[in-house]
């Protein structure tokens, strides 16, 4: 996993002050309508009882998985993963089936439930600000984060940074970098002071979620051909057996009258 060279986010939940500058910046940069968002905050929020309290929340957007489930699931291949990291959605191919929304373990793709046929109902999701990273800028969310809770850079560098922080401040963090291996590795790594479940993150193994589905799909064509062959063979065999039975019966019929005549 760590030898993948591409752009990655690192989110440090202990630094995030839930100011939402990232969210405003994303809305402006990507011209998102007021009733939609590509980026959101989720988590248990306030934990505990007065006065023993704690806050836990996380900034969510697309995880830009290394083995994207949306990419695997979309029937028309509207998703692609660039070599440098971003998982890109192509509205020109989308048929609006929303299977990608099911496939994504993080609930990232959002759909235009308020758009009819004329305006066109599409999926929207974080694009890693490709219009910015392609000209050497950083994604809008991370560029404006006042506390540096959102970081961006090369995956191996950020993984090293994350692990260095875990080593340097073990009391501050849970000893795990989420996204390093989950779902086969994501391009959004998370450090946290609370269990990741409390940030709303699903528990995922390092086996990519899409592996089982793809394995089954992989056997489809061989299976279909095999099954077709079996059925054809059966049909032919049954037909031949029946034909023979018929022929035998006819022989019996034609021979019996002869026997009768002979009598």
């Amino acid at each position: 996993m760590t030898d993948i060279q591409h752009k990655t986010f690192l989110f440090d939940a202990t630094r995030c002050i839930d100011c939402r500058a990232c969210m405003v910046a994303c809305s402006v940069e990507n011209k998102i309508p007021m009733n939609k968002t590509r980026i959101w905050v989720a988590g248990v929020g306030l934990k505990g009882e007065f006065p023993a309290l704690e806050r836990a929340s996380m900034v969510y957007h697309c995880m830009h998985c290394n083995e994207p489930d949306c990419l695997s699931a979309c029937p028309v291949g509207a998703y692609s993963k660039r070599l440098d990291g971003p998982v890109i959605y192509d509205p020109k191919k989308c048929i609006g089936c929303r299977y990608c929304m099911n496939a994504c373990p993080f609930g990232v793709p959002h759909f235009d439930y308020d758009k009819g046929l004329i305006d066109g109902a599409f999926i929207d999701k974080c694009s890693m600000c490709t219009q910015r990273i392609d000209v050497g800028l950083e994604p809008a969310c991370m560029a404006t984060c006042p506390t540096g809770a959102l970081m961006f850079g090369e995956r191996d560098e950020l993984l090293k940074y994350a692990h260095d922080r875990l080593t340097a401040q073990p009391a501050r963090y849970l000893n795990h970098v989420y996204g390093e291996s989950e779902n086969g590795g994501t391009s959004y790594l998370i450090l946290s002071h609370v269990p990741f479940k409390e940030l709303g993150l699903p528990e995922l193994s390092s086996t990519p979620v899409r592996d089982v589905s793809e394995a089954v799909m992989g056997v489809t064509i061989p299976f279909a051909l095999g099954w077709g062959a079996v059925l054809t063979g059966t049909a032919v065999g049954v037909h031949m057996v029946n034909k023979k039975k018929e022929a035998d019966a006819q022989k019996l019929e034609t021979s019996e009258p002869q026997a009768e005549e002979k009598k």
Partner: protein
Amino acid sequence: MNLQIKIHPRFQLKPLVIILLALMGLAFVIAMVRYANGIGAVSNLSNSYPWAFWISFDLFTGVAISSGAFLMAAVVYIFELKEFRPLVRPSVLTGFLGYMMVVIALLVDLGHPERIWYMIIHWNHTSVLLEIGLCVMSYLTVLAIEFAPVVFEGIKWQKFAHFIHRFIMPFVILGVVLSTLHQSSLGSLLLIQPAKLYPLWWTPILPILFFVSAVTIGLSMIIFESSISARYFHRGLEIHLLEKLAKVIPVILAIYLLIKFSQLTLAGDLKYLFTGGLMSVLFWAEILIGVVTPLILFSIKRIRKSPNGLLIGSIILLLGMILNRFDVSWFAIQHPDPLTYMPTFMSAVHYFPSLPEVLVSVGIFSAGLLAFGLAVKYLPVFETNEDQHDIVS
């Protein structure tokens, strides 16, 4: 050659027709609203529930209940058990209309119904949904071809009927392969949601379970459709045939039970059978209603030989299996624990279908019923064809 023109009795339920037409009209209007103002205008679907009632009812259930067609085609044409011929045409009609309803429902549910043909030109070979889409489109064509002779006979184009029938075999085989693929693939659709589908249902062998249960659903649908048709169209019930179908059902249900509980055991998920709260209840409901009860009922000869027994048994199985389809595609899909969300419109994590949402599906189903009735009235669907050319099924 003596053409027999049977005059079918009229529908005696005129009020029913009016109701069905009204429901169709309502669904049409709602669909127009959907096209104008978006899916959200007529349903409670949301980012938390991208698939719910429409997919569970129209796609999952709709495809499952259309599985009688390939079974009967296989039985009659591949295994040449010619005695079942009377059941082929109605089951093909049921299948054809069933799949038509699926496609029409998809035209409402898809964000871009005008792009439904993109699945033919843009292929992502890892996508289960692509496979289902292509299979359904192909199989609908196959069903159309399999049913075409009935239509041609009805309009007295005997030569066309004849022609198609000569080449029916490859289509039957294709139909069985396609059906096997997509009946099982409906289960495969859930393979990509291991974290979201409750452990009592998610398993890598979901496609196998779906196929096995689809066989029982198909057989039950034939029994059900025959029973209902006999009552409403005043025809005889081929009990001797249905009894034989019913005899097979317990065997397949037993196989299903075996596979299912072995799978749960090997996966170490038996504990969820009693600790899952509502999930456990739903699971046991499925198993008891859809598997155990019909298994017992159809093991009893007396029930198999009685019209009421057949009807009730099939209904129970269908209800239980439809519950299974709903569980897998909707009820057992886990959603995250309630969290604090910002912006607050992200907090919409609850779902219950809206009335327009349900009415669309009801209207489409009504259209299917009406089409079935019309076909029965004007086409030789229930012809047994003994006194016609042997060429027609």
